[in-house]
């Protein structure tokens, strides 16, 4: 789809006296992945939250277009696929029940989510409360891909995963980017990641906040 693009310009965010983002800019086009690196506290998660629409920046412009249409924050929020360490699900429900619930919210069928779980070898009848951290991470991926999003926002996407888990999720990411008309991705990680198709890099410096 022509015109699909994520652009952010001069994004600022402070928490009390601490200026975490002091004017960050970047853009991602279909088939591209933007890698955001930097030490702890440099604002990577904050930037991703702003891009996802769950945190309002103090200043700056974030524009996400699908096709020729620019989406407002509310639409963007529902359209992105988001993976982050603090993303949690209902521990009193099973994996399958969680997926089905969120699928109903998103008004889609749960098939895509179950397919991903199948590939990542996560049993669906277990209580989320009983999952290990690595299994939780796999569930996050399944949840993020449930509605086949164009834009993936991944904060430490391979955290806690064992070798097969990381292999599986890397494959999912590669497919997301490659599959026509091409997915977009912003990936945040403390250290640099070896990912194919990384077309942009953004290094955040906590001293500069950008």
């Amino acid at each position, binding site marked *: 789809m022509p015109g699909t693009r994520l652009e952010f310009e001069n994004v600022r965010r402070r928490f009390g006296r601490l200026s975490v983002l002091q004017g960050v800019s970047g853009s991602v086009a279909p088939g591209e992945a933007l890698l955001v690196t930097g030490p702890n506290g440099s604002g990577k998660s904050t930037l991703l939250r702003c891009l996802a629409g769950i945190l309002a920046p103090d200043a700056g412009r974030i524009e996400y277009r699908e096709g020729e249409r620019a989406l407002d924050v509310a639409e963007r929020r529902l359209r992105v696929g988001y993976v982050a360490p603090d993303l*949690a699900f209902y521990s009193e*429900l099973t994996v399958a029940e969680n997926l089905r619930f969120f699928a109903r919210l998103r008004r889609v069928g749960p098939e895509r989510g179950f397919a991903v779980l199948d590939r990542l070898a996560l049993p669906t009848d277990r209580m989320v409360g009983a999952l290990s951290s690595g299994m939780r991470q796999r569930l996050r991926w399944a949840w993020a891909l449930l509605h086949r999003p164009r834009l993936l926002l991944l904060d430490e996407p391979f955290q806690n995963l064992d070798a097969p888990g990381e292999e599986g999720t890397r494959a999912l990411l590669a497919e997301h980017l490659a599959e026509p008309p091409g997915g977009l991705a912003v990936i945040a990680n403390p250290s640099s990641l070896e990912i194919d198709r990384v077309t942009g890099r953004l290094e955040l410096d906590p001293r500069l906040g950008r």
Partner: protein
Amino acid sequence: MSPGASNWIPDWAAEALAVFAKEWRCELRTQVALNTLGLFAVTTLVVASVSLGPLGVSKSQGSALLPVLLWLILLFSVAAGLPRAFVQEEESQTATALRLSATPSALFCGKLLYSLTLVAALEALITPIYVTIMNLEVKDPALLVGALAAGGYGLAAGSTLVAAIIAQARSKGTLFSVLSFPILLPLLILVIELTRNAVLGDPAGLALGQLLLYDASVSIFGLMLFPVVWNP
């Protein structure tokens, strides 16, 4: 379109029902809210009746005092157990996933529906016990049920929105009471009057209409204000 959803249920309503179903599924497995509400209400009720017993509330005093006491018990029980609907989402960090997947208005309606059923269950538990223990003679039971329904609705609606507000603040427990009581006060005054009328067998008068108007207003404005409260 979600497979299996009937064509005549709009997507939005299906979303709200999904939230409602999730709330009850989680609640039935843990029973936290039911226990909190029920235990608090019964305990308060017992304390009230034990304290009043020796004083011997006369019939005339009873009709003035007992409706007030009933609604105070309901109010404080709701304050003890209802905010959990939103506070729990924030504390267990499931709120992020909800923010990224749910339409705010559907989410609010689903939570409201859940709160309504909780309050209805609470009233169904407490009112018969209360009427029995206090030897309260209700001349117009139909009006009493109406008052419980309309008043319970207002309690649930007001409390749900305030719960959404305080869930994102500190000191949620005390803040809920501080914020909700001024909002709920007109409701309480109206519904207490209606309850008193039901006990005495008086006609409902203007109070019922005003109460329903309150319920409608809080619902409509709650629905309008919720997206602002819920999302940045």
